């Protein structure tokens, strides 16, 4: 199981704060493709993925038990 978290615009778009995917492993790229096809308007090409609270690269692999988060463009400060 891979946990994914949604924030800000994505939390409102998906209507949820988090969910779990029943996968053993997938790449960051695959996760973004899944999100884009599951949630029209997700805007995957503007979003970064954090895996276990660290920014991941597009080819990194995510494993069951990892906690992921979709990070839309940040605007703190």
């Amino acid at each position, binding site marked *: 199981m891979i946990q994914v*978290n949604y*924030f*800000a*615009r994505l*939390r*409102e778009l998906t209507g949820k704060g988090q969910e779990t995917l029943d996968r053993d492993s997938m790449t960051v790229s695959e996760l*973004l493709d899944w999100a884009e096809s599951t949630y029209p308007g997700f805007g995957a*090409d*503007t*979003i*970064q993925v*954090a895996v276990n*609270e*660290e*920014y*991941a*690269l*597009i*080819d990194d692999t995510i494993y069951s038990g990892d906690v992921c*988060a979709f*990070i*839309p*463009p*940040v*605007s*703190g*400060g």
Partner: protein
Amino acid sequence: MKQYEIVETPIDIQQYSDYVLHPAAGAVTIFTGNVREWTHGVKTLYLAYEAYIPMAEKKLAEIGAEMEAKWPGIRVAIAHRIGELQVKDIAVVIAVSSPHRKAAYEANEYAIDRIKEVVPIWKKEIWEDGEEWIGAQKKYPEKGVGQ
């Protein structure tokens, strides 16, 4: 308080100043980012901030570590508030102490620039006639240029 923290209540600058001050510090700089009433000609009613709290606090601590490596001898504390903020409220405070003032200014400005780049915090502007999540669009970073 924690040295690097996300908070949900009003920010009191004094405690962050006190935290970084010590007998070898000759200078303290404090930056606060405050809610402005007007942005690009549109009147803000209030802002709503949201964070991925554990990762945000981790990233704030990483920024602090970067600063201490670049400007040895400084001490740093950073807090960002989330939730609904009204005009004039403090969204972020950065306190830096240093033996000499130059490093305190430079490190402080470095911190706010980095916060705006890498800390998972989001701001929604709420106006009289609408609202919008703010954030500069950008492409996924290539391998090796990750943040």
